[in-house]
């Protein structure tokens, strides 16, 4: 433990130096020692595999090395560097990658603990707390809090050239609220979909009475709303309250199926926005608003979050066809089994029209799921989905470039790599 923490400490030091470099716009290059030892160890319990020795970013980088991603216009370098003090001529600073989880370590380290603390304070009943905090064990990707905080800090730099601790605290609360709303929807989704596992452990509906699980989901939402009201900001409350409606409407849209191909794609797009992108977009928007940003910046933040969310979900739908259940932590081809026609299927439909009736009957007949899976792989559906995701990534990068340069702003552009090339 001490070895990894000292390695982590040096990694942190290195990151700080890099930050200072970028912030001061110096052209001098310093090669840095990159290692992927981690301080970001999740709390363990008997249900979870223990991922030791790899930071989240590290595993993503490994994913980049392993993936067969075709060449993108985003540079994918993962160099091995020698030591901190050697000076070498090197390429433009832009090629150095920021690990956002490291950058935001102070804020993110205790975020799940703080959420659990809030849940503990709302009731005196052990079982309710148990169910409510089941998905806040630190095993999730914490993408939403990370993006919210990154955007928040980037905007703080953009506007004030400093990070006011009070503002950052409020932005951190918004990050927590976003994660809580997300988890509450996961809790309800698990009951709705009757899933078996999530994040590598049994899903919450397997372990507890479904009615209690429903109430626990409501409880998490109530606590999140209480936290939201305590920010005492009318606009931010409005933004994040709208998210719940979007989530539910998105879920409802999934229940129906559309006739024509064109309608199907816009239906899928709207549904994806509501179910995934809306939360991230509104959290970014809230983060910007509470920093006191003016309307154009707030809009930029919103659109960034929206594009990131869309790209994230498209890659998610792609991974459902590509990845194995072990990597994902949840069963693969889950979407097909639920009767959902996602982007790969919709693209594949153009080449294989026999998918059309299957989509309409939601893959209910025996053999439908397997046939559809096969056809998607045979067609260009997966590449087209990746292209679509990349398009939104580029759009997000363009938006992020509107903000003043800072380590956080660079982080906003760099996480697109994570989003696009992740394996889980």
């Amino acid at each position, binding site marked *: 433990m001490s070895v990894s923490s000292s390695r982590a400490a040096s990694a942190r030091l290195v990151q700080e130096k890099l930050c200072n470099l970028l912030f001061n716009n110096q052209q001098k290059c310093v090669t840095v020692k990159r290692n992927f030892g981690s301080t970001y160890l999740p709390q363990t319990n008997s249900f979870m595999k223990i991922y030791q020795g790899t930071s989240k970013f590290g595993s993503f980088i490994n994913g980049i090395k392993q993936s067969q991603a075709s060449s993108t216009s985003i540079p994918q370098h993962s160099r091995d560097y020698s030591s901190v003090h050697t000076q070498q001529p090197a390429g433009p600073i832009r090629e150095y990658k920021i690990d956002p989880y490291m950058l935001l370590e102070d804020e993110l380290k205790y975020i799940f603990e703080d959420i659990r603390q809030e849940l503990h*304070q*709302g*009731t*005196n*009943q052990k*079982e*309710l707390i148990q169910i409510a905090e089941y998905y806040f064990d630190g095993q999730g990707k914490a993408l939403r809090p990370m993006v919210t905080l990154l955007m928040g800090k980037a905007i703080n730099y953009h506007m004030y050239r400093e990070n006011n601790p009070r503002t950052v605290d409020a932005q951190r609360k918004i990050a927590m609220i976003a994660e809580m709303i997300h988890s509450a929807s996961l809790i*309800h989704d698990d*009951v*709705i979909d*009757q899933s078996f596992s999530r994040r590598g452990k049994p899903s919450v*509906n*397997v372990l*507890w*009475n*479904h*009615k*209690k699980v*429903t*109430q*626990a989901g*409501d*409880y998490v*939402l*109530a*606590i999140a*709303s*209480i936290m*939201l*009201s*305590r*920010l*005492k*900001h*009318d606009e931010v*409350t*409005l933004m994040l*309250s*709208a998210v*719940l*409606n979007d*989530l*539910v*409407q998105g*879920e*409802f849209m999934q*229940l129906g199926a559309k006739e024509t191909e064109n309608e199907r794609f816009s239906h899928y797009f709207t549904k994806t926005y509501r179910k995934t992108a809306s939360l991230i977009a509104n959290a970014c928007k809230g983060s910007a608003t509470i920093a006191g940003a003016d309307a154009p910046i707030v809009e930029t933040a919103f659109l960034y979050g929206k594009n990131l969310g869309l790209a994230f979900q498209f890659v998610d739908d792609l991974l459902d066809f590509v990845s194995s259940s072990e990597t994902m932590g949840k069963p693969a081809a889950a979407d097909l*089994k*639920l*009767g959902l026609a996602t982007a790969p299927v919709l693209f594949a439909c153009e080449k294989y029209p026999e998918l059309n009736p299957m989509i309409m009957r939601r893959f*209910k007949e025996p053999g439908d799921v397997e046939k559809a899976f096969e056809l998607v792989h045979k067609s260009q559906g997966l590449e087209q989905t990746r292209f679509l995701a990349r398009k939104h990534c580029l759009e997000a990068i363009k938006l992020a470039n509107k903000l003043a340069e800072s380590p956080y702003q660079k982080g906003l552009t760099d996480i697109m790599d994570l989003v696009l090339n992740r394996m889980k």
Partner: protein
Amino acid sequence: MLNRIQAGKKLIANLQQLSSRNVSATMQINEKIMVKAETKNEWNRALSEAEKIVGYQTSFLSLRYLLSDEVTNLALHMRKLVGSTHPLVSTGKSLIYGQNNMQTWGLIVLLVSKMAGHADGILESEQDKSAGVLMSQRTLAEVVEMVRTANMIHSSGVLNLQHLQKSGNDLSFDSDLIFGNKIALLGGDILLGNASTQMAQLKNQEVVELMCTAARDISDSHFIGDRDVQNNPLPWDPVKRAEEIRNTTDIESEVQVDEIDNKQPFNLRLMLGGPESEWTVRHTLANGTLLGKSCQSALMLAKQPVELQRQAYFFGKHLALAWQASMDLEPYKTELPLGHKLSLISAPILYHLQYDASIYDEIKKGMESVDDVNYYKIHKEVSRGPGIERTKELQSKHTLAAMTELYKFPKSDAREALEKIILAMQED
């Protein structure tokens, strides 16, 4: 616009179809639904008079809401459940057609709003002069109903399928049970989402905070004590209670938490005090805080002083408890009809448990499923014991407390209407 009206008519026709094709013979009494018997003419009269005082009836189930896309969607999906035995069907029926008091709570909030009036400094545009309430208070009344209904749908309309899932049954995805659960969950969430957005539009963060603590309390109440497989509550085992009392040193010093700060969660050790404490804690969390906090929020929106808000809170809380007590007494007025169930955490049963703990042997049979209990036997036993008398005292106590708070407000037609409602409830 014409299309929407047609859609609305179709929707109402669908709902009527739903009701006429219902399979189950008797509608089961659920202590959370609070169905009133037809004989309460006094009650109905008091309600309709009261409605006139605050203008048109503000139930969120008004045509405006029914015409919204989401509800149309919801109802269309519910059609698929017609003929199944999923509890959502009976829940939905009782919501729209039953003589339930879901819509009455919005009315109570409006009456309290009118009664209290508003402080100076409220904009003209905010006021609904003809009705004597503020627009924001009207929204609040809708929000209360939505939260209550959402919780009712989540608690009655969802079925626990955990035992089925564990035994490895492959529940195919369009089976009635799963589908019903899906619709119940989503339906409740839609209402919660709408309540959330409407509350946010009030632009008053203190009100939002207070109402969310009420929502939190309701969720909290579903975890108290022993529960059967479908999460129906059972009373505290007298043996275990006695043991807990022996292990606890200081019961008397436990104060009702909402005397001090009603945003804090309840300390369940208060239930140790006896049947009345147990009943009070359970039902305050389930109903009392919502009505109390919404009355308080109504006054908050009117910028009334904190002392008046406090009165409104206690009025709402005691009214809800008096209501619950009168509900608990309903089944004991006549012979128990065949197939009817009793609420096992109703006051008569809790009082009887203290008087004669042997009845718990019968109640214990409900640990797996409350359907297994012999309600006829319990009904007979309790009717013979002191339970009914003591519940009547309990009801009087809360009615008196509510009236006391009520009389602290100035005389007005709204106050009279509330008096009449309370008296109609007390009378039987």
